[in-house]
């Protein structure tokens, strides 16, 4: 655990308590089964808005608390533990895009609403099934943006899109020139295709801003992955203590003990790299890119390990939809693919370090 200040400790504890009481995994199941058009738990989102988490990275001048990314990560980690279906991980970086952006109008129009949860903002970056910021074709001419974005988280219902074009980052608000195509994915969350056809767009900044925002989104995603890995491990750990085979709890079998020890070891390393990425952002360090790639790559491999072991160590029931293992497995795979998988970030890290 990073060393937290008082605000951060309170925020984390509050988020953990809220997630455990108000947003357990059953809440995700209910959302999945109800399959609302927006693809998230809107009642929970409204509570999140009231608690002000939408404004954790919004400047105080615009109604936010400006606690920073470590704080946002702590909250998203707690939500990730229970697979809470919330747009928070998208909203935060999108808000930062507006806050760091060059449009005062955008700040005035949107940051306040985002901070209170009254507007859902998201990022529309990728144009294919694999993260590849180097091949963006979306273009803007005369203030109108055109292009097709794939797998836009919360795209089914977002009020405003922070969109990557070839020459930088733009804000598209409202439905003019925007067509949404829903996608049903393994994690039962919203990942829509968004077609922009001469949608009115406000410029926020250049491609450097795009990269900054994607790095922030990746770090927050890594925090969600950390929460998931933690909880997947904890659930498996508890299961091994209670499941009896051959007359003894599975937890007494040394081969399984050592596999749990291995996972625990990797989890500790994962916590370090994820927290370091969030802290690097808050500190405005020059190596945020490296810290983020380290977090996504190392964290991604750890979540992969832990979520696969969760299924295997649960045995047959781990294969049933009734148990939670499959839910963690599916969400883990989707997050692994988002914003570049482990291999992508290993390569990026290597290039940044001239390996």
């Amino acid at each position: 655990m990073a060393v937290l200040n008082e605000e951060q400790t309170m925020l984390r504890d509050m988020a953990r308590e809220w997630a455990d009481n108000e947003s357990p995994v059953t809440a995700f199941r209910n959302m999945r089964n109800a399959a609302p058009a927006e693809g998230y738990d809107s009642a929970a989102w409204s509570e999140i808005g009231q608690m002000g988490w939408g404004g954790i990275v919004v400047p105080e001048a615009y109604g936010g608390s400006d606690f920073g990314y470590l704080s946002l990560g702590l909250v998203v980690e707690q939500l990730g533990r229970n697979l809470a279906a919330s747009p928070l991980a998208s909203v935060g970086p999108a808000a930062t895009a507006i806050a760091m952006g060059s449009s005062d109008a955008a700040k005035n129009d949107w940051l306040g609403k985002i901070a209170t949860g009254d507007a859902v903002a998201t990022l529309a970056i990728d144009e294919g099934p694999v993260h590849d910021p180097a091949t963006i074709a979306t273009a803007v001419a005369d203030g109108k943006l055109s292009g097709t974005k794939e797998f836009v988280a919360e795209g089914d219902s977002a009020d405003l899109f922070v969109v990557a074009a070839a020459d930088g980052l733009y804000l598209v608000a409202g439905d003019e020139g925007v067509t949404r195509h829903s996608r049903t994915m393994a994690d039962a969350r919203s990942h829509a295709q968004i077609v922009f056809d001469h949608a009115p767009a406000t410029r926020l900044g250049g491609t450097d801003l795009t990269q900054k925002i994607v790095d922030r989104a990746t770090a927050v995603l890594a925090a969600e992955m950390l929460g998931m890995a933690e909880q997947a491990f904890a659930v498996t750990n508890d299961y091994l203590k209670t499941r009896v085979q051959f007359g003894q709890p599975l937890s007494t079998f040394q081969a399984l003990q050592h596999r749990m020890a291995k996972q625990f070891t990797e989890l500790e390393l994962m916590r370090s790299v994820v927290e370091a990425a969030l802290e690097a952002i808050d500190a405005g360090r020059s190596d945020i890119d490296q810290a983020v790639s380290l977090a996504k790559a190392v964290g991604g491999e750890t979540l992969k390990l832990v979520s696969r072991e969760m299924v295997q160590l649960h045995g047959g029931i781990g294969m049933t939809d009734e148990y939670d293992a499959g839910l963690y497995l599916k969400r883990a795979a989707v997050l692994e693919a988002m914003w570049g998988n482990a291999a992508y970030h290993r390569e990026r890290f290597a290039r940044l370090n001239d390996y």
Partner: protein
Amino acid sequence: MATAAELDAPTKPLDTFRHEARDWIEANFPPALKHAGNAMATIEGPADESADETAWRTAMGKKGWGVPTWPQQYGGGGLTSAEARVLNEELGRAGAFNPIGGMGVMMFGPTLLEYGTDAQKQKYIPDIAMGNVRWCQGYSEPNAGSDLANIQTFAEDKGDHYLVNGQKTWTSGGQWADKCFALVRTDKSQKHAGISFLLIDDMHAEGVEVRPINLISGFSPFCETFFTNVKVPKENLVGQEGQGWTIGTRLLQHERNSLSGGGGSAARMNAGNGITALAKQYRGADEHGRIKDADLRSRIIRHEMDQRAFALTLRRAALDAKSNQGPSAATSIMKNVGARITQDRAELGVEIMGMNGLGWEGEGFSSEEINQTRVWLWGKAVSIYGGSTEIQNNVIAKRILGMLDHQ
């Protein structure tokens, strides 16, 4: 695994048989079915059978060639293993397939032929040979998974019949099955020796309730099965009371062999450049034609080599078995290596396709992509069922270290 029968001399010259088989297939195989799959052999439940399919199944059934090496007196083909291989080659040559399969053929039939009475064989085998009846397996219970001998389903002795009560789980195809071979407890005072092997004749009888289990892949090929005061006549006991563990584990050998065969077919299915082509299609090639992502490529290479090593090991074990060297030590590793390769391949497939490899249903994904998601998820079961990877490792350890701290 080849059996001693494979070394038997064929009853007639193989060339003669080959021509006979070729002619018969040409006369009977409906051309419309050429290169179609065999719906019945899969675990996914029955498709509606077309008229052609029915005709082909009936023809093969009457000929006994669905179970070519089983005795003719019970409806089998009475062929030698060598002839059966020739038959298989000729089926392949004609684009045909064996329409008769399932658990009756793969597991229950061979076991009953070994342990059943003549009356039992007469009663059950011909229907299996005709592909008329689906069998399911009543083995696992909620508290008897890896520890199978812990089953609690009780068959109470009521004089001329047993009264069966209990819950089974992981009943493969239970919702489509007509009959069930089950391990039941006839003696609560002994663990292994209290188990008997019992046949449930009607899965639709009163007292039998079947609930499909929804899996993470979205499929429901297995069921929970509840027996409540189900009457089973005593003649449905296979072998003696208390012999169930012996018979039941013998049946598991047939299962494991068919799973290794599954590994083999996986190795064949996966052969060639499938995953490499997929990687180049989705992720591009570099200026030398190599898979562009070097990190991904290095893992694909290892996977392909692992698979090649596995295929060579299957071949080696088959050759060992055919020669007089006895069963190969390699057979003990097949299940785990097959599972690892199947799962690695699915993981690579999902990784290559990126977000497209995680589509669940509906628009935006090709059927290959949806299939990739489902196969990946379903594949997580192969290291769990039929003796988990952990159990297989225990078995290997017992073999090499000669002792275990349990079992």
